[in-house]
């Protein structure tokens, strides 16, 4: 059994997901190699090599790969596939984009968004916005998985000095035959924020339609800052322009698993709940005691968020 993990990164940093994907890979058992592909990503590879349980890093550092286009990374993975029984990655927006294409190229059905590993070939994945769980068995020649990172424990870092040259010795440069691409990158819009990453944060504060305006969302941000929490939103709040799209939590947004989730003016539609089932504790602020969110929250305060929020912020201890 050999596992290849496609590392996901933003060309500068290894995403927090990866430590959890390695955690999932370790559950499968077997030797774990990691592929780091990008441009000027030597440091990313170094950091990846420090993850506990990684056997070696395959590094492809080439200008061609300065964006993770599926059309380029797929043929690369196809070429490496022979050596591996399992090829896995995070079901983040990079993994979701590439892996189904990869699977089709290998004439395999992938298993996407895995939330539980029963054995080397049996997995759970959510269907119907998480209202049902499907347990599937794979008897195909290979296993292609995308993993919901928030459902798995992260591995630690190997202690310094262990392994040659702080992991450097584990890095193996790979070569590829000529690939070309006709798709080009035009521009990107990155949400600037100094708050923690939503999918891996231990506290998340989110606002819904009831926040009422982009300006009023500052209250949510203020509360988040006080708690050193990540900020989330509902689809309604994003569609109305109160919050950027990458803050959306739910079936079509991000899936979170914090120890504490604070839902402010959020009704709790099933598509939103789909993204928060991993939260340990839920606190709701809502003016409707019958809102679905209040029905599932561990603690709720019923009332007008416009009165509650400023008061709450002033009563909380600064972290």
């Amino acid at each position, binding site marked *: 059994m050999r596992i290849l993990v496609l590392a996901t990164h933003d060309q500068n940093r290894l995403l927090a997901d990866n430590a959890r994907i390695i955690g999932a890979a370790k559950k499968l058992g077997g030797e774990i190699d990691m592929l780091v592909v990008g441009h000027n990503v030597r440091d990313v590879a170094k950091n990846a090599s420090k993850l506990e349980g990684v056997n070696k890093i395959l590094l492809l550092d080439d200008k061609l790969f300065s964006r993770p*286009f*599926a*059309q380029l990374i797929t043929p690369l993975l196809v070429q490496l596939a022979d050596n591996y029984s399992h090829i896995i990655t995070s079901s*983040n*927006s990079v993994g*979701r*984009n*590439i*892996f*189904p*294409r990869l*699977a*089709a*190229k290998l*004439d395999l*059905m992938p298993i*996407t968004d895995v939330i539980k590993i029963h054995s080397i070939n*049996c997995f759970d994945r*959510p*269907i119907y916005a*998480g*209202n*049902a*769980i*499907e*347990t*599937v*068995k*794979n008897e*195909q020649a290979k296993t292609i998985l995308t993993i919901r990172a928030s459902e798995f424990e992260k591995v630690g870092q190997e202690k310094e000095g262990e392994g040659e040259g702080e992991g450097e010795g584990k890095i193996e440069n790979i070569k590829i035959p000529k690939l070309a691409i*006709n*798709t*080009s*990158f035009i*521009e*990107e*819009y990155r949400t600037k924020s100094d708050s923690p990453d939503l999918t891996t944060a231990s506290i998340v504060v989110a606002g819904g339609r009831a926040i009422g305006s982009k300006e009023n969302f500052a209250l949510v941000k203020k509360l988040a800052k006080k*708690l050193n929490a990540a900020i989330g939103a509902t689809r309604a709040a994003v*569609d109305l322009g109160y919050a950027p*799209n*990458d803050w959306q939590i739910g079936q*079509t947004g991000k899936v979170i698993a914090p*120890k*504490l989730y604070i839902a402010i003016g959020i009704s709790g539609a*099933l598509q939103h709940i789909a993204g928060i089932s991993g939260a340990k*504790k*839920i*606190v709701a602020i809502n003016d409707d005691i019958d809102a679905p969110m*209040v029905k*599932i*929250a*561990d*603690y*709720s*305060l*019923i009332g007008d968020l416009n009165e*509650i929020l400023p*008061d*709450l912020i002033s*009563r909380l201890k600064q972290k």
Partner: protein
Amino acid sequence: MKILVALKRVVDHNVRIRVKEDGSGVETENVRHSMNPFCKHAVEAAVQIKEQNKAKEIIAISIGPIEAKDVLLNALAMGCDRAILLKTEKEQKIEPLAVAKLLKIIVQQEKPDLVFLGKQAIDDDANQTGQMLAGLLDWPQGTFSSKIELEENRVNVTREVDFGRAKISMPIPAVITADLRLNVPRKTALPMIIKAKKKPINIMEAKDFNVDLQNRLIVERISEPPKREGGKILNNVQELANIINELEAEK
């Protein structure tokens, strides 16, 4: 320009689904079905392109039971010109890989310039078919799109990604999958549906296409997720602050 839009008939998004007690699946008998919401955005995007006189023909295609004719009719009412149904047996589940293979055959026959699909279906939540089709065709893919702009022989797609949005430019032909912020799909009133009944729906059997429709994955069981119990109603903001401080300190 010719656009093929692939769409799926699913349990309506407002239905609270019920998991069968024997673990064999989700109750779909006598449950309201409709067009997968993401596919609706794909149809709307194609129709808008036609309305701007940038496309000549839009073909809607679905793979599913005979009842999928209803969602195709809906697509025709929204403005598609004709429809194709690759009919499957009632209750027959076809995996994304087989769907992509069937779609590839239709693409080779119809030779569209663009293929639009929903980014995922709200029943299996797989988020696979578009990427698979693009792979099988060796076409570029623009997934999770929130904006589509046509240029000469190229198409620009703004994609919703984890860090925000990214805009790419692809040569045509290409596969594009729709996210919910792509547009606001039009509602179809009864007169539009009646008019759409005059448009052709070509029905063929999925099994006649020489594609292996056997499922690759074995579904062992479908179960209910753990239930969350509602908790305590707090009395005032100070109680709320205390609880938050407490939970925050917990490991």
